[in-house]
């Protein structure tokens, strides 16, 4: 039977239109080839040490490589380090506490960055002469929002992306103001199986008034003081009155390598460990005269072997009991 001419033509047209629509849909890959919002700031972290009465100009470069114009609103927030010292928690918005009043206020007005545009943002700093020793932890945020306002009359969530740079401003009133790093916590098992590695983490605390770079190492020795492993600390900064988990580089990396992947866990693996092992931690900041020393012990015993022996003994005893009972039952049946 021949199909009517009209439906065939309609089907063909629908197929063509559908195919066209499908092909015209943007794919995720296409959508990502041009990024509308692409904001960067340099440098990401700055450490400044100033004395009361000193001035400095703190330069930042903010660049927009996206495809839409952005209104950039600079803001200053204080931050505090989290317990691990790695994450930062932004706190309340603050007025920049060390802004030089004699210079134009760079935070006063938002500015527009066109696609591909770069702006040098200079923060004039003045530490008042009556300042005491302290450390300010500030994040300078550059919030970017579309210059074109969102269309009203729609239910929507409007988004603002911000990129931030951290400023750690240390005010020193004397040379005695130095970081003082201590070993706050040793985290790791003190009793391990002989087939397990010795693993631990170290939390450092800075009780000094300004930040310091962690230096030193943790070593693992046998009871007879034979060194098995030595972990040099990654030079992380520990802020004043803050804690930070110490890190070390894997054995196959040095600070000169291009890609560094420091780890929080210090680990030593041997085929078999037995007895008492000593972990000695020597920690100081780069300017600290007397280091903080901690000694910890790890005892390795073959618990897994004990367990296997116990299981074996249990099975043997069970077997003997079972076979005795079986023999007794056979004897009874004979009688």
């Amino acid at each position, binding site marked *: 039977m021949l199909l009517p001419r009209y439906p065939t033509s309609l089907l063909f047209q629908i197929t063509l239109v559908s195919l066209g629509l499908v092909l015209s*849909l*943007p*794919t*995720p890959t296409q*959508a*990502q080839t041009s*990024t*509308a*919002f*692409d*904001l*960067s*700031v*340099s*440098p*990401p*972290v700055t*450490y400044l040490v100033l004395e009361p009465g000193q001035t400095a100009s703190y330069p930042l*470069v903010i660049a927009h*490589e*996206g495809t*839409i114009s952005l209104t950039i609103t600079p803001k200053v927030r204080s*931050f505090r*380090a989290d317990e691990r010292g*790695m*994450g*930062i*928690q*932004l*706190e309340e918005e603050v007025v920049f506490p060390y802004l030089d009043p004699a210079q134009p206020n760079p935070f006063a007005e938002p500015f527009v960055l066109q696609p591909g545009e770069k702006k040098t943002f200079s923060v004039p700093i003045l530490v008042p002469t009556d300042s005491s020793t302290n450390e300010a932890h500030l*994040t300078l*945020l550059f*919030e970017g*929002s*579309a210059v074109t306002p*969102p*269309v*009203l009359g*729609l*239910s*929507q*969530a*409007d*988004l*603002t*992306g*911000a*990129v*931030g*740079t*951290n400023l*750690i401003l240390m005010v020193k009133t004397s040379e005695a103001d130095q970081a003082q790093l201590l070993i706050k916590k040793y985290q790791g098992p003190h009793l391990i199986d002989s087939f397990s590695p010795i693993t631990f983490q170290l939390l450092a605390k800075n009780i000094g008034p300004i*930040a310091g770079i962690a230096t030193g190492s943790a070593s693992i020795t046998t009871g007879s003081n034979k060194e098995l492993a030595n972990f040099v600390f990654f030079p*992380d*900064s520990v*802020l004043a009155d803050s804690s930070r988990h110490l890190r070390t580089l894997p054995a196959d990396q040095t600070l000169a390598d291009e*890609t*560094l992947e*420091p780890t*929080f866990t210090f680990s030593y693996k041997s085929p078999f460990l037995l007895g008492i092992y000593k972990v000695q931690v020597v920690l100081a900041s780069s300017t600290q005269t007397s280091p903080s020393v901690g000694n910890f012990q790890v005892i390795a015993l073959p618990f897994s072997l004990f367990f296997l022996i116990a299981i074996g003994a249990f099975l043997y005893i069970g077997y003997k009991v079972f076979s005795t009972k079986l023999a007794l039952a056979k004897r009874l049946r004979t009688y």
Partner: protein
Amino acid sequence: MRPPIALSHLTKISLAVPLFIGLFFASTLVTKTLRSASLTSVSVTSSNPRPSFRGALAAGNTVGSSIVTINTTQGAYPSSSSAQLVEGDILRIGNAGTLGSFTVASTSSNAVFNITTGLGAGQADIGDDVISSISAGLTVRFTTANAIANGRFRVLVPSVAVGVGNDGIPDGGFYDFGTVTPTVTCPADVGATYDFVASVATASTTTINGTLYHSYECAYSGVGAVGTAFDGTSQGAITVSSVINPAPKANHTLGTADSHNIIIQQLSSVFAVQDTTTVAVAVIEAVKVTAAVPPQITFQIIGLPTGTSACGVSTNVTTTPTSVPFGEISISAFTNAAQAMSVSTNASGGFVVTAIENDQLGRNGGACVGDPTVASNPNCIPDALGNGGAMTHTASAEWTNAGITNGKGFGYSLHDLNNTTTEAFAFTTATGNCTGTFCARQFADAENAQTPVTIFSDTTVADNENLYVCYRIVAATTTAAGNYENFVTYNATATF
């Protein structure tokens, strides 16, 4: 009467033709025996094409300083630019007898470069030599043109007179022989055709058209052959272990090659040149590629189109980098949207991206007190509580049921598509109150005095670490008709 010796035109022609042909062949024979032919397929390869450095100190250098300033007057010395040097080059600086050895640390301008140690006494005076010898091996390849018995191959390299030409100090425009006689390696024997017997290297011995040449020879016994390829493949090539490359010629232009003619000859048993070919070898400064990478952090937000597969669902809203336009929201089914976010930083401490909303979605942007606001408030789309009512801005919960009271509202999930980063949780998280279909959280609510929460982070340098943020919304049946809006802020900051 005709003269007796007169010849007819025909006779003249008949005599001239054989005479011409005879002379032609005779001339061909004479040419073959007297004129040198050319060796073919000739090439000379240098293992290091950089020129040597031969310059001098300018005024202003001081003992103990690792910053060296050289004389940049064009033509005063063969080398007049530090651009010719690269990091790691070994330099000798000073006068004869006080020459010290230094290593180039970096170059900072045309006149200035840095060395890894300070200049010593007698090594910082104006006019003191600044020398860097670039040694190179030469590989000479060719194919013979004639069979020459018991001859020799000779490689001639332009030089200056003995004394200067073999003192190990680079010469402007000429090769230096070096203080130690280099090794000439001849090809392996080719049966009885070429039986190499000796190699000889001599400094500045041969003069051709007023130019002196160092000579490197390979003598052989045997009959020789036409077309033997000493190309390093069919037969071995001739190699010279070390020559000192020329310093730049007078009026050398930086970045332009200086050309030097090297001559390859085949000599007879009585040292007569039989075949000869000249090739040019170029010597040019290394291309110095420099770039500065400042420490930085980059944050990208990318809108995604409708139909994107994110967090296990297909989105039904096209987002932009600065808005999630839900449009008309259903009261019975979820509306899903997504954005991609990416962070790159070379800060060794890594980065943190946090998120916070200014408030829950309020009608025309109105305030929504509490978090979540009371369910009876018709003018807010609250932060959702998830299937079991346990979802907060810090606690994840499964959120797949749009038809219950706790399921109504707004929230988000995360999808680390290519496992590049460390996210706070994922839509597939299957622990606690999540079963792994759409594990979600509320946004932290600034109106309710909540602090921003981390959504993804890393503790070391990051190269395009990215994920999808998946937005989900469904309105309650009691929600008043209207437009609802809030603001979500993402902060990307480096860790100190």
